[in-house]
Structure formats: C-alpha cells, structure tokens
C-alpha cells in the first residue's frame, strides 16, 4: 500500500483559528515560545492514523502552521521566567520534583497538503461539498488529539472570524494554483507563517568567518538569534544628527530582513545505528527500533501569508536521512533571489 502512495498533494485541508490551550512552550533545550515544528509533523501522522481507524482514510503529506495569536505563560522581566503550575504530591505525600514546563495558548490555522487514499473518500467530491462534511468530520477527530501537548478548545462561532474547516482541490495548473492561493492566504491574515531559513544560517556563518575564521555554526546561530546593536558613524558628507546622538543599529537586521528566529528543526542520532526493537529497556514498545538523539537547530522566519507566492512555501515535511542519522523537518520555502526591500513593509513590527 505504501508503495503506491501518492507523493504529490492533491488538495488542501485547512483548520482555521484553532484555539490550543497549554501547548508545550519549551521546544528544546535551547529554545522556547512556539512549539517545535516536529510537534506538527507528529500531529499529522497521528491524525492520519486516526482517520484510517475512523474509516476516513486520507494521506496527509505536509503541514503548515499560521500563528494568529499567542499567549505564553511567562513572567516578563529582562529575562522571562515560566509561570508554573502547582503539581500534586506523590504517593508518599512528598512534593514531586519540579520539572519546569513552559506553556502557551495559541490561535493557529493548520494547513495540511493531502492526497486521496481511497476511492471511498473521494477528494473532488468532498471539495465540492458546500457543507464541507469531510473537513468537519476530520476536525472532530483532530479535536481529540493533542497539539504540541496542548488541548484544542471547541471553536466558537464568532461573527467576522472564519473558523469552519474546509478542503479545496489544489489546481494542477501553476497559474490557477497561484490565483487560488491568493484567495486562501488572505483568510490567514493577520497572522504569521513559520518557514525554514537554513540559507540564513549558512550566510551568517560565511559573514562571521570573514572576520573570525574560527567561527562555528553555533556562533553563527547565536549571532543571528540576537541583536548586535552597533554604533553607526555618520556617513561622510551627511549631516550629523541635530541631537548629537549616535545612532545604533544591527547592520544585519535592517529594513526588510524579516522576523528571523532560532528554531529546533528535528533530531540527530547520537550513535551510528538505532538499537533493535526490544534492546532498549522501558521503551514505549518492544517492536520499534530506538535511537538516542539530540535536538538540532536552524533558523526560521515568521512571514505574513500575503508575502508568500505559493502554497508550498508554507508547508513542511519530515525527512529521514538514515546514513547521517538525521531526522528533521524541511520547509518548502524558497527565499526570493534578490530581496526587493521596497516591496516589504518599511516598518518591522515591534518586538513585544
């Protein structure tokens, strides 16, 4: 069955404005805030399994996430700290060890690229259905799953906000697809889509190495994750500012550079081969190979949907490279060849 599984998405399945409560905000040992993108590929697999069990087989190939609103449960300060829940005592009445958990409430739109799995669940017909019965049934299944450890709250019908799940065929013709995408992406405003920016990590490393040949990818990642405010000398011939103050800017975060963030993108194995099923004690089952891994990191960008030209730009898929022991999510985003800064906002949104 998996041999003739389609690899090309045929339709888009969209769950607008899901309200997720208490999702996991500690996405890795080095990042916090938005849950890891691996949580969404994991959700996609779980959903496909559930659908198959529910007699609604559908292939889910890729996933995208638009974040409309977020409310991380933190205490603000120069450095944020997590607001903790009090946990019940253990069976002997002792306080349980505190494991700090970060939580976040989210308002997100989930987008899945799907393909038909069975003639019994015809996509073309489901897309035509004005009642969007299939999408609604899938939404019911989705509501039973955890999203990044958080629970999906029932969506309330609110005037002026689209919350109804829908499914639409993806036109094969590129031009028709672009036209359709323009309509779709407007529904996701205001919001931000997470896309992968591995290219920026490589660029940052090359930039650092011009002055520090020993710079590592970790240096580059941290350098790109922060602001490096630098005092700017007044350009030759230009008038000094009237207030006599020196302007400080991050030369690599100028106009149109986008909202770049450090993100975990998956896992890397810590030994050459996975352990055979049953070899690792207390694994979740004894029929699946087990690998000890660590999180690996790259850069991502949050970009407004109306800046995207193709639906593929917002979709992520999971990729396993067994020779390198790399289990990671890859983004379909292709950075524009030459960034036309004039086409972007001339004002970046304020942080916080």
């Amino acid at each position, binding site marked *: 069955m*998996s041999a003739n599984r389609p690899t090309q998405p045929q339709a888009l399945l969209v769950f607008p404005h899901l309200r997720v409560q208490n999702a996991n905000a500690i996405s890795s*040992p*080095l*990042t*916090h*805030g*938005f849950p890891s993108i*691996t949580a969404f590929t*994991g959700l996609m697999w779980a959903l*496909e399994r559930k659908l198959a069990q529910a007699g609604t087989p559908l292939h889910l190939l890729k996933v995208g996430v638009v974040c409309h*609103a*977020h409310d*991380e449960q*933190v205490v603000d300060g120069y*450095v*944020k700290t*997590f607001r903790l829940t009090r946990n019940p005592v253990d069976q002997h009445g002792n306080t349980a060890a505190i494991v700090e958990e*970060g939580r976040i409430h989210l308002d997100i739109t989930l987008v899945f690229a799907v393909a038909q799995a069975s003639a019994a669940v015809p996509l073309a017909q489901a897309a035509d259905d004005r009642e969007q019965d299939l999408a609604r049934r899938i939404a019911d299944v989705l509501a039973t799953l955890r999203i990044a450890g958080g629970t999906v709250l029932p969506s309330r019908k*609110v005037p*002026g*906000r*689209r*919350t*109804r799940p829908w499914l639409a065929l993806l036109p094969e013709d590129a031009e028709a697809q672009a036209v359709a995408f323009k309509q779709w992406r*407007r529904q996701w405003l*205001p919001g*931000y889509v997470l896309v992968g920016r*591995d290219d920026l990590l490589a660029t940052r490393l090359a930039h650092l190495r011009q002055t520090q040949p020993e710079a*590592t990818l970790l240096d580059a990642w*941290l350098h790109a994750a*922060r*602001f490096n405010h630098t*005092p700017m000398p007044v350009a030759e011939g230009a008038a000094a500012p009237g*207030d006599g*103050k*020196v302007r*400080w800017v991050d030369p690599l975060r100028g106009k149109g550079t986008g909202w770049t963030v*450090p993100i975990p993108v998956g896992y*890397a194995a*810590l*030994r050459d081969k*996975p*352990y055979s099923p049953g070899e*690792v*004690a*207390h*694994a979740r*089952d004894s029929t699946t190979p*087990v690998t*000890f*891994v660590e999180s690996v*990191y790259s850069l991502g960008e*949050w970009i*407004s949907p*109306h800046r995207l030209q193709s639906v593929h730009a917002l979709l992520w898929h999971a990729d*396993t490279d067994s020779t*390198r*022991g790399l289990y990671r999510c890859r983004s379909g985003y292709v950075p524009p060849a030459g960034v036309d800064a004039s086409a972007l906002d001339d004002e970046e*949104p304020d*942080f916080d």
Partner: protein
Amino acid sequence: MESNEQPTARSQRIRRVMQTHIARRLARALEKWEGKNDALARQEVAKAHEKYQLAQILAKGVKANAMTVATHTAKGIHPDLRIKDVTNLAIRFEELKTLNEVGSHLLNSRESLADTTGDGAYNAAAYELYLLLDCRIDGSTLGELLQADDPDAIDTLSTYSANPAAIASDLLRLLESKCTKPATHAREKQVYWLTGNDPSNDGQYHILVPLYPASLVHQAYLQIHPTRYGEDNHAARKARRDGKAHQGVYQEYRGWAVQKLGGTKPQNISHLNSERRGENYLLASLPPHAWQSSQRYLPVNAKSVFDRSFGARPAVRTTVKAFLAFLLTNPEPNRHTRQAVDDFLDSLVDEVVIYAGELQSQPAGWSLEERYADLALPEKLWLDPERAEWPDEAAFAQDWSRMDWPEQVGKRFANWLNAQLQGKLPVGDAEARDWRRVLLANESWLFAGAAA
C-alpha cells in the same frame, strides 16, 4: 614521545601535566577573589588552595566515582532519572556526523566539555576528577593511559596510595556507564518518528529518545550569559541608550527566557547545571503579535478609517506610492497592465484585511466608546463584529446580518483609493470586487443555521 625516555622521566612528565592542570584550576578559582581581602574572600581563597591539591582531588574523586561522565544526560530531561536506570551518553563529538544544523557535532572532544551527573552531593568532586582524567599526554588522556595499565601513568598515583593500580581502577569507575544496558524511562521523552511514508504502518517508525545535550547547552550558555551580567555588554547597553559612541557591540537576546533545572538543588541535575545555578537560557522562537494593533492607527474621532488611519500605515503608503507611479506612466491598456493593477489592488485589499483583523481583535464593543462616536456605522459593523453578540445590541446585530455593510465599506475603500490615485484608477476596478467575500471572513457564521 622520546623513545629512549626512562619510565620514571615520563612518569615525571605526566605528573607535571597533572600539576599544571591543577594549578590552572586553582588560578581560575582564585580569579574572582583577586584584589579582595574581606573575610569571605580570605575564607574562599583558603578553601580553594585546599581543594586544588592532587591528593584532595583523588581522595574526593574516589568517593565520587559512582557518578558518571556524560555529554548527554537524562537528568536534564527529568531529575528523577537515576544514572543506573537510564542511559547517559559520553559522546566523542568527532564521531558524530557533520551536519548543516547546529548540534553537538560542532564541539571538540579535546576541550573537556563533558558534564558529570548522578548523586548531586558528589558532583563537583566527580567533575574535578573528570577534568584530571581528561588531561592529555602525547595525544592520550590520562584516563586512557590508566585504562591501558600504562605503568608510568599508574606510577604517578604511587605518592597517594600504596596500591596505585587499585586506586587507578577505582578512579576509572567514574568513566564507566552506570547503566549497563541501554535503557530509557517512562519519564523520558520518547517520540515516534515516521521513517517511511505510511503513518499507519507501525513498522515504519523509530522511537527517538532526546537526551539533554549538557555540553552544547553549556557552550551556548558561556556565550549568552555574559550578555546578561557582563560589564562589557552593560557598558554597551548604556551607551546605546544614551546615544553615545562606543567601542563594541550591544548584544541583546529579545524575548529570551530562563528555565530552572533542578529547582533549588541544581547540583541534583549535573555539575555544569549547578555551575549555571540551574539557569538555562532559552532563545525565543515566537512570532510577532499579529493582532496587536498599534495605537497610532486607531480611528479616533474619525468618520472613517479611510480618512487617515489606514492610509498612514507604512505598507499602505508604500504600495499606494508605487501604484500611483505605475499609473502615471500611462501604461498601455493590455493584459500586463491589468495584471499589475490587479496585483496592486490585491496588496491593498490584503492590507485592509490585516488592518481590520487588528481592530477586530480589540475587546468587543470598542466602537461604543465616545472617541469612536463619529465612525460611520458600516465601518463599526465591519470592525467590531462581536458587538453584535451583546444582548442589548439587537439593532446592531440586525444591521450586521442585513449585510449591506460590505458593499458600503468597499465603496468607501474605492473612493479613498481613487482620491489617492488622483482619479487614475480604471473606473470600477475597486468597486467591482466581491466585497462581501473579501470582508466577510466568516461564512460559517452566516451559514450557522445550515452548517452547524
């Protein structure tokens, strides 16, 4: 190594390496008390001199040998996981595959970056012993030499024990894995990862058990922490605030958080964690707040958002400017022009939708405030839709459901745009839009009766 070197001479050399190492550790410990001569400083200095003695390190190290050395720990994931029950790993970083992603493969094993974990009380002693055993002599570590029963290396211990071979094997226990069989735990994170392409096929998964990358985290910490407390960064921060010239950069991690590991007993996690006082920095991956509207663009005392606030938005201004410039070139009325006009219009409509989204996310009923009294009703209906749900807003709700407002808002937008474009917009282009579909994001509410 000189081949004709006498064993005793080589043994002397190994001793020197060990002594140099300990002297370096002592110097580091004394660094922070330099120039201070208060009671606490004197006490700490005395303590350091006592601690950084080879005999002390060995004596305490032997007691701490039930701990383990690790680059990847389980206790960083959950403090209850005991080192004899679950796998902790001491990885040689060079043996990891080189990746384009950030990970432990970037670290260097020669730099003694591992951590010690186990019973919290013995962490520091175990760590000192680890550092000692990781000292390099001709390319091998002291630990490796002892493991290979190198007589010169063992001889260095004869000063401290009548039976140096026995004490060597005792010390080496620190380097052993205390969990003899690979093991994970229900309290560890275990992730099912689909390696094939059929999620319904149980045979296509791997279970991934992420361990805490103690060494990598510490290396990141060493770079991040000084931006919080370091004097250089403080000076740079102040200079930036005051708009002054400055040698150097102000580094700022925005939105970062600190995660406490181990609560009040960070030593229960690992030694490096206790060096960090249990404070682990997490960098923010969050998106901007999309719905937060800037106060600047609220239609205060205005009849219409199109009077001033919408057009003042930078993205709108930029697009209108480009649109007008394009129209002023008197482009041929062909397909290409049509497409260009359409694209400009589309961008502006997108901006309308973003702007509306921001206003709509204000608390419902905001349009009732006195300062919005002048705002035209169709715009109130459009921008404050949830007000229609209020019990005493039946008239508002009725106006809303009559659905005249989308056309009216569309007309207002078209008028505004025509004025911006000095009447150059081909007639009817903006009016002809299906404003109901554009502005009424919510067909599910409309069809509530049918689709619920």
